[in-house]
């Protein structure tokens, strides 16, 4: 059978919930994606600020990030397994590397695009470098940050699926791989639906945060 009946899928999900397997694997996946995302976003922002405000930072950081961006996450899986084994760190690092680039690129572009009129203003007000970063550059880059974050959240799940299906003994990806080996299409469908729901929920959460953080923008929406 190519696709199971929706009722069969629902029953499979019910069974997985009742015996606790689904929650267990979901929690593991959430932890991996969450940890990797937080690490990747923090590192991405720090690198973007460093390379955005200093010529040296640009030289040191930017080309390396462009190389990283050109590498597909899947291509890094074999190396991650060799370096970090099949433990948690390999999966978290893959997510981190994958989410780092969209945050970096968008924050970096936003910082480089800082309106020079505001920098003139800062100079006439006698603001220190730290104050310029805190009061002008970072808040000005916030819209760019959220654009990057929305990409990153989606990519976090992609990277997680990739690493869990190849190299894991727990998580939603692992659950689906196991199901594949016994052709349990109903469980595979459950996994796909879970990924879809996670993607939607995380994007909704980011958009909610974006609205809260950017109330100062008068947009077409309001």
């Amino acid at each position: 059978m190519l696709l199971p009946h929706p009722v069969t899928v629902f029953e499979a999900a019910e069974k997985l919930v009742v015996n606790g397997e689904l929650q267990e694997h979901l929690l593991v996946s959430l932890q991996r994606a969450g940890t990797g995302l937080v690490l990747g976003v923090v590192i991405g922002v720090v690198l973007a600020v460093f390379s955005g405000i200093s010529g040296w930072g640009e030289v040191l950081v930017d080309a390396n990030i462009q190389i990283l961006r050109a590498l597909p996450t899947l291509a890094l899986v074999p190396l991650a397994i060799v370096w970090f084994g099949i433990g948690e760190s390999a999966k978290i690092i893959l997510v981190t590397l994958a989410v780092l680039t969209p945050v970096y690129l968008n924050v970096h572009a936003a910082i480089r695009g800082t309106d020079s009129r505001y920098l003139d203003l800062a100079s006439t007000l006698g603001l220190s470098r730290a104050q310029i970063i805190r009061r002008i550059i970072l808040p000005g880059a916030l819209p760019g940050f959220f654009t990057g974050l929305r990409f990153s959240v989606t990519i976090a799940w992609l990277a997680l699926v990739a690493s869990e299906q190849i190299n894991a003994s727990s998580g939603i990806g692992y659950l689906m791989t196991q199901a594949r080996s016994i052709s349990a299409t109903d469980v595979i469908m459950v996994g796909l639906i879970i990924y879809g729901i996670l993607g939607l929920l995380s994007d909704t959460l980011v958009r909610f945060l974006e609205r809260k953080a950017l109330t100062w923008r008068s947009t077409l929406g309001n």
Partner: protein
Amino acid sequence: MALHAGKLNREAAVPAVQVSGLSRAFAGRDVLRNIDLHIQPGEFVALLGRSGSGKSTILRILAGLDTDYQGRIRAPALPSVAFQDARLLPWATVLDNVTLGLRDGKSKDRAQELLAEVGLADRGSAWPKTLSGGEAQRVAFARALVRSPELLLMDEPFGALDALTRIRMHRLVRRLCDHYQPAVLLVTHDVDEGLLLADRVIVLENGRFIEDFEVELPRENRGRNPRFQELRSRLLTALGVEDDH
């Protein structure tokens, strides 16, 4: 230039701004040629000139935004600047925009005082994007004056406002300057504006000052003073415009 003999005992004071031999060229083109300019403490000077005459260049140099000049300048290290656009940070509230130029603990109270003075006491928590053009410019004046500057530089701050708002803003700025007494350099292309507001008017043309005189008219109802038209014609002629009104 000795055209403006100090009438108000200003001769004795140390000038707030002393510029001598100021020259500035852009890509080989001389924009300012060996300019001398003194502004006394509390003196309101309007600098008139056509577009591209270099009047904004003088202001940027005094503001410390352009350091690629020749000549000697003695001016307060951190003059306040009011730009043509209000230049409020859109992500900071009105009150935070005003406190931007201050660092001490009492700054919130002080900023609130200034907002009250420009008639925006109740808009402190508003976002700049919700203000009208005139309100935004009033916030910019509050930010410029909150630290009681020795020197206030204004670069066509009324240029983007509608005619009615502009009249109200002229009165507000005159009142604020009377209160805080900074030395003022107002860059404008509006002859009437210069004559209405300033103690002294200078015309910049071809990199040099071609007019520099004190506006010896009583402050009240200047626009209706018969001599106003005389001075207006004189300035318009200097700016290369025939006055046929």
